[in-house]
């Protein structure tokens, strides 16, 4: 053994220490990765690091909003609203934001599939698939007798036409049905009955000064939510001088839309139309409407029966309330009444909507806010009646072939219909779906379509709005998918020359172009097509003024179409079930997007599961226990009628039973639902549809009867149910820690009168000496980034939340983690039930305090202040003490409890990995994917700030106001979130900050935030007390 001298000692200590350190630390640190830059020139002339934007049209719902797809290094990483598009005007919704997770969904079908004979599927080649299709088509043409059926979602462009041609020629004839469970059928029927026009009218929300919604969830799923949200903000948000209009929601269950109402009126389900007629009765009797809107004698006589007193008994709404509403409604000109949601899918759906039309007509709104002949192309949806007939035909062996595209009737039709079982009787079923949904799983041949971000197409939601869909990237390599148009054309062209002659183009792209050549002849006959086409691609379509719409007189027959003066019979049972479309998933199509699963429901704030909404009184009567029952209100010592503290609700599971079936779900106590009503959202309870949707929650369609409403043939989403406790309990992962503000008045509101007077909301803190340790604002820096959030404009739609997930690589953590409060959502919408009956939706994100409590407590300067007013968070420097999170009064710091960024540990897959391939392709390359053990939070999209500053520097100028926005501000349909440079006095944000309504949340803490809120404007007295709304309406 060598002698231990000083040198040897140091050697041993050094080597041994390093070895020990290396072995112990290797397990802790991040794996090393290498970045290899491309040596070849990218094919599309893209410059690595510089985004390219492609204009396209969203296909996530039939609204037809324009999108801009942001492409980085050949991959779409984000979508934004297309500012040139007249419907979305640069904003978007949660579903549109989540379309990326449809594109990169790990459960997307990877190639064509055929039945393997053992109940499963086998992967086949496209050649095989097309050969099968062509062979079967030939057989179909011989023996099918023109009875093939093509089920689609609502289509409005060239594909619709192609399908018709293909059915007629290649499939030997058949019917195309557009199936959407959220239907406009009753609206179309009602418009026909009321005005003699079979169409969806256009509703001009922006001009309305008094808005009454009879169940229409126009901020969620009804018609065009993004456009309507913009219109709603224009009529309802305080505009700096006054508050233009009043909004009253009439619905048995208060929806997200209803939560934005100044007043919520809860009639019995199915009696909404009676309330509308009683209002019309008052207007007519008191002669409040304009003279041009005077009703016919027949109608006047018919309305006589619907006195507020008579209706009050049926609808369970006080006659005085109806009278007050009617007077306010008539006096505010123009006003607007809309009907939809459950009111439009009840047993008297069409009559209810006729009643709403009558109300609009007698108040003189037709031609003002209700526009007919405005070119809306939102009709044409197959009725429930047609579906019943189809199922009968299928069961009778009358349907030789079924083609399905963009529809999932095996999931989203009422159980009473038995669609899924009937499919077994169809000998040949083809699905073009990209996902293995319930319908596709029952098909014989699956020919996966490309995602709309990889495809050509168009959408015409309204005359004059011709939206183009173009591929924003090469198809995701993981999926061997072909555009449905190409498959249809290819199969037709392979079916013999006679048929091929009907399909002169070889691809759908060429077909589309030919269609648009015809369109150009109509809208702009002059000029070169190619240039026009290129311009259309750049703008996302061709937008010409839509027909302006006109007024129309009520038809003479309208009196006969009114609902009978009695609450409709809804079958047997003790409570009324209202099935409503989920704001997150719509009819269920969004359920396989993890962002949308983790996105809390905007009303209940529950994630990842289904629930039964029940009034606390009803729950008490049934002995249903939910979390904590009743808690003292600290502020005033008053017992609130609803539970106030339940982040993780553990509640009794109840069963809802009808003759059609039984579903079970835990109860959520909602004070904003009638005690005789329970509600369940559509969208969950998938049996198929991939890992994120499967076996999650319950599908209320399973208890719905297949009864259809007589006039429109629409299915009924309202039925009586038997409710019983199952004896089991289940937790619901809610993000809401409390449902009211506990009298703390953190999110302030101000009365309209005070707002008009310019009363300053913020306290004057100037007398208090400023915080001594406040970091001085850097004088030589031209920017101080800030934001204002207008609580009066926020509708709670949460588009911003999903936009933030997409922009900033936020991991989805799953139900169990959300139940522990570990969601990573940098921005959240806090929903509070206020004592005055209103609901506050308060966006909360890092406020980037000037005197930030998080900064001094960080022991290593990971939380630091940047000269431009931002709170930086240096992930690499973070040790993970979480002191910053504790000391943040707004609770907007999020910790990486697991490694959501790492695919595997030592070769074993990481169960917490949030981006299973190919979801990882969506990750924004400009934003770090955070590792385990570090704190993260809103950066105010610093990557966008830096990109804008770089560009401005290259061009030798300063960043201009509005040149870029944060992801949340950009998504917001109502412009509640405004971002900009506070040091620029001309910037929008600086001007908004000067508003008297501007204040800092928890201002008494003197955190001096860069993000400030603007107080909500409410009527000081509850409108129910008979004051308020009418005084301010004009």
């Amino acid at each position, binding site marked *: 053994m060598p002698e231990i001298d000083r040198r040897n000692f140091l050697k041993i200590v050094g080597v041994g220490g390093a070895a020990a350190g290396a072995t112990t630390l290797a*397990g*802790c640190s991040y794996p090393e990765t290498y970045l290899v830059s491309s040596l070849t020139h990218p094919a599309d002339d893209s410059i690595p690091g510089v985004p390219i934007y492609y204009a396209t049209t969203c296909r996530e719902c039939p609204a037809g909003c324009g999108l801009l797809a942001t492409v980085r290094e050949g991959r779409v990483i984000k979508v934004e609203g297309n500012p040139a598009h007249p419907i979305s005007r640069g904003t978007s919704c949660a579903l549109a934001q989540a379309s990326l997770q449809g594109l990169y969904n790990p459960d997307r079908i990877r190639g064509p599939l055929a039945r393997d004979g053992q109940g499963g599927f086998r992967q086949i080649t496209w050649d095989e698939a097309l050969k099968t299709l062509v062979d079967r088509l030939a057989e179909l043409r011989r023996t099918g007798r023109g009875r093939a059926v093509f089920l689609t979602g609502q289509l409005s462009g060239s594909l619709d036409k192609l399908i018709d041609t293909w059915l007629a020629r290649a499939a030997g004839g058949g019917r195309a049905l557009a199936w959407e469970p959220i239907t406009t059928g009753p609206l179309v029927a009602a418009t026909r009955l009321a005005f003699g026009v079979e169409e969806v009218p256009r509703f001009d929300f922006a001009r309305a000064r008094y808005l009454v919604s009879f169940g229409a969830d126009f901020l969620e799923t009804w018609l065009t939510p993004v456009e309507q949200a913009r219109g709603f903000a224009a009529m309802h948000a305080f505009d700096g001088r006054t508050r233009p209009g009043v909004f009253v929601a009439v619905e048995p269950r208060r929806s997200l839309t209803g939560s934005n109402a100044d007043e919520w009126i809860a009639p019995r389900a199915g009696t909404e139309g009676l309330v509308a007629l009683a209002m019309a009765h008052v207007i007519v009797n008191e002669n409040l409407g304009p003279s041009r809107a005077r009703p016919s004698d027949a109608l006047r006589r018919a309305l006589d029966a619907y006195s507020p007193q008579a209706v009050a008994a049926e609808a369970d709404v006080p006659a005085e309330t109806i009278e007050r509403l009617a007077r306010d409604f008539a006096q505010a000109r123009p006003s607007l009444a809309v009907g939809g949601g459950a009111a439009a899918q009840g047993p008297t759906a069409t009559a209810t909507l006729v009643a709403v039309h009558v109300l609009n007509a007698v108040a003189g709104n037709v031609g003002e806010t209700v526009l007919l002949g405005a070119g809306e192309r939102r009709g044409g949806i197959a009725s429930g009646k047609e579906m019943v007939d189809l199922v009968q035909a299928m069961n009778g062996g009358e349907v030789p072939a079924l083609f399905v595209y963009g529809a999932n009737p095996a999931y989203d039709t009422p159980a009473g219909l038995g669609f899924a079982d009937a499919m077994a009787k169809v000998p040949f079923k083809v699905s073009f779906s990209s996902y293995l949904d319930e319908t596709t799983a029952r098909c014989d041949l699956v020919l996966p379509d490309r995602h709309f971000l990889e495809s050509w197409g168009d959408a015409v939601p309204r005359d004059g709005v011709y939206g183009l869909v173009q591929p924003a990237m090469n198809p995701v390599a993981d999926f061997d998918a072909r555009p449905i148009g190409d498959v249809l054309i290819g199969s037709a062209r392979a079916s013999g020359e006679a048929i091929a002659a009907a399909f002169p183009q070889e691809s759908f792209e060429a077909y589309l172009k030919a269609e648009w050549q015809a369109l150009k002849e109509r809208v702009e006959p002059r000029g070169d097509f190619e240039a026009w086409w290129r311009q259309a691609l750049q703008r996302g379509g061709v937008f010409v003024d839509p027909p302006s719409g006109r007024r129309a007189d009520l038809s003479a027959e309208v009196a006969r179409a009114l609902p009978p003066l009695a609450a409709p019979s809804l079958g047997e049972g003790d409570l009324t079930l209202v099935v409503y479309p989920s704001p997150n998933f719509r009819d269920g199509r969004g359920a396989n997007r993890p962002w949308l699963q983790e996105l809390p429901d905007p009303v209940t704030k529950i994630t990842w599961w289904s629930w039964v909404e029940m009034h606390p009184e009803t729950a008490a009567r049934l002995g249903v226990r939910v*979390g*904590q029952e009743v808690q*003292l209100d*600290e502020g005033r010592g008053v017992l609130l009628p609803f539970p106030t*503290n339940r*982040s*993780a609700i553990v509640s009794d599971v109840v069963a809802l039973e009808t003759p059609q079936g039984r579903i079970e779900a835990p109860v959520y106590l909602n004070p904003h639902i009638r005690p005789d009503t329970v509600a369940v959202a559509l969208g969950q309870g998938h049996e198929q549809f991939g890992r994120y949707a499967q076996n999650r929650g319950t599908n209320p369609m399973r208890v719905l009867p297949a009864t259809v409403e007589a006039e429109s043939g629409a299915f009924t989403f309202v039925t009586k149910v038997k409710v019983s406790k199952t004896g089991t309990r289940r*937790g619901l992962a809610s993000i*809401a*820690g*409390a449902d009211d503000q*506990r*009298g703390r008045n*953190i999110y302030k509101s101000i009365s309209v009168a005070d707002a008009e007077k310019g009363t300053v909301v913020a306290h004057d803190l100037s007398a208090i000496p400023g915080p001594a*340790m406040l970091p001085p604002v850097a004088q030589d820096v031209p920017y101080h980034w800030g934001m204002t959030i207008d609580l009066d404009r926020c509708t709670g739609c949460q588009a911003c939340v999903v936009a933030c997930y997409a922009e900033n690589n936020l991991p989805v953590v799953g139900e169990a*983690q959300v*139940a*522990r*409060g*570990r969601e990573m959502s940098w921005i*959240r919408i*806090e*929903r*509070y039930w206020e004592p005055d009956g209103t609901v506050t939706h*308060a966006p*909360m994100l890092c406020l980037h305090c000037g005197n930030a*409590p998080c900064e*001094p*407590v*960080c*022991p*290593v*300067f990971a939380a630091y202040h940047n000269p431009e007013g931002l709170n930086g968070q240096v992930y690499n*420097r*973070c*040790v*993970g*003490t*979480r*002191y910053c*999170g*504790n*000391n943040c*009064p*707004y*609770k907007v710091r999020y*910790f*990486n*409890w*697991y*490694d959501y960024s790492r695919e595997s*540990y030592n070769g074993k897959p990481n169960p*917490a990995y949030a981006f299973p391939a190919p979801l990882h392709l969506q990750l924004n390359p400009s934003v770090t994917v955070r590792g*385990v*053990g*570090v704190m993260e939070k809103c950066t105010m999209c610093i990557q966008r700030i830096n990109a804008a500053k770089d560009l401005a520097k290259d061009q030798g100028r300063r960043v201009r106001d509005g040149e870029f926005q944060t992801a949340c501000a950009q998504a917001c349909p109502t412009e509640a979130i405004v971002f900009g440079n506070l040091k620029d006095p001309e910037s929008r944000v600086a001007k908004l900050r000067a508003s008297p309504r501007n204040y800092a949340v*928890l201002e008494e*803490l003197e955190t001096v935030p860069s993000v400030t809120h603007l107080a909500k404007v409410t009527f000081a007295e509850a409108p129910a007390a008979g004051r308020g709304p009418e005084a301010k309406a004009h």
Partner: protein
Amino acid sequence: MATTTIGTPAPKTTTFETMSRLSYRAVNETVLQALKAPGRGWYILFLIDLAVLAVGVLAFANQLTTGLGVAGYAPPVMWATYITTFVFWVGIAHSGTLISAILYLFRARWRTSVYRVAEAMTVFAVMTAGLFPLIHVGRPWVAYWLLPYPSQGHVWPNFKSPLVWDVFAVSTYFTVSATFFVVGLIPDIAAARDASTGWRRRLYGILALGWRGSNREWHHYSRAYMFLAAFATPLVLSVHSVVSWDFAMGIVPGWHATIFAPYFVAGAIFSGCAMVLTLVIPARKIFGVEEIITVDHLEALAKLCLFTGTIVGFSYSVEFFTAWYSGNPFERGQFWFRATGDYAVGFWTMVTCNVIIPQLTLWFKPLRRNIPFLFFISIVINIGMWFERYVIIVLSLGHDFVPFAFGSRTQYVISPTELAILVGSFAWFGMFFLLFIKFLPWVSLTEVKEVLPPPLKERTAAGGGH
């Protein structure tokens, strides 16, 4: 061989009657017999202890590789069992130095028989406490960034952060209390050296630093001891004050209070004395030193518990009063929440263990002198003091400013990992304590003798310089 330094006043008539009958030799023999080769009981205990520790270590290893998610954290509760346990152990560490240093300076002579145990407990408790910040942080492999070391990045720790103060306070406290402990051991180790053979003799020989018991050595020793006592005394107050500022410097309602430093120090001594009782009561029985550590000593500790416990109880009521009197809705909400909210069980456990039971019993002398009862109440106080920190940390975080972000009971629940590490920390502490009790004189021979009447007849018979 009594010296005349001010640290060792001439023995007066003592109230500790049983002790005064002991001879110096008897003291040596009684205490040093614990250093004999361990018996089967000790080995079994030690193996059980190591097994429990191993479970804790494995739990930590699992947490280190998968992430802090395996702990029960439920934001906004981002500090929980680990920090609770950290503060708990730092608190335990208090009474050791209090007994050995402050009471030394205050001439509380009853401390002599228990101070060694208390001091050992201090050192081991700090060693235990010091692990918890590392267990608790998200990336323990970079925790050294909290130390001010020269680096190429030119980034120093943020000296504004109470966590950095903590690093200094705890490490200083550990250094000083360990030094104090080791220095205080020197004469006793020398005695052990003289009474032992074989490897033990060599080991003690090194540790005794060549102590011969000369007058000069005693002189320096006493001076050094007093100097260290004076040095350690402010640390007793400072370390837990600094730990309390981890909370008081935050703006969280329930934390942000000026009362925190004295409140924490009193609580620390309260729990520390209780822990001394917990350790000493079985040990004096097992090693048969009931004559050295008498019921009088135990009563003195109980009185200290009563005194500090009363301060703690008073602090609780002051917290509530302040919250009410301030009119601050967040403070009011927090304290209302503590008493009635989701975690009210934790709060009432704390009140019962720390206020109700001690106040109802310790005022009565017969109970203070009832040894089984003292053992029981020491456990009760330890549980109560753990819950005190739990209440301060978890409940304050669970209910602060923004109602929407409140946590609730179904959320933060201690996880198996945290429980294993919590129990493992007791095993870690126990491991050191078991080793200590077998390898080092666990009652101070030197100081016990100082309070005994001088041995007039057997002046030269006692070994080790006495």
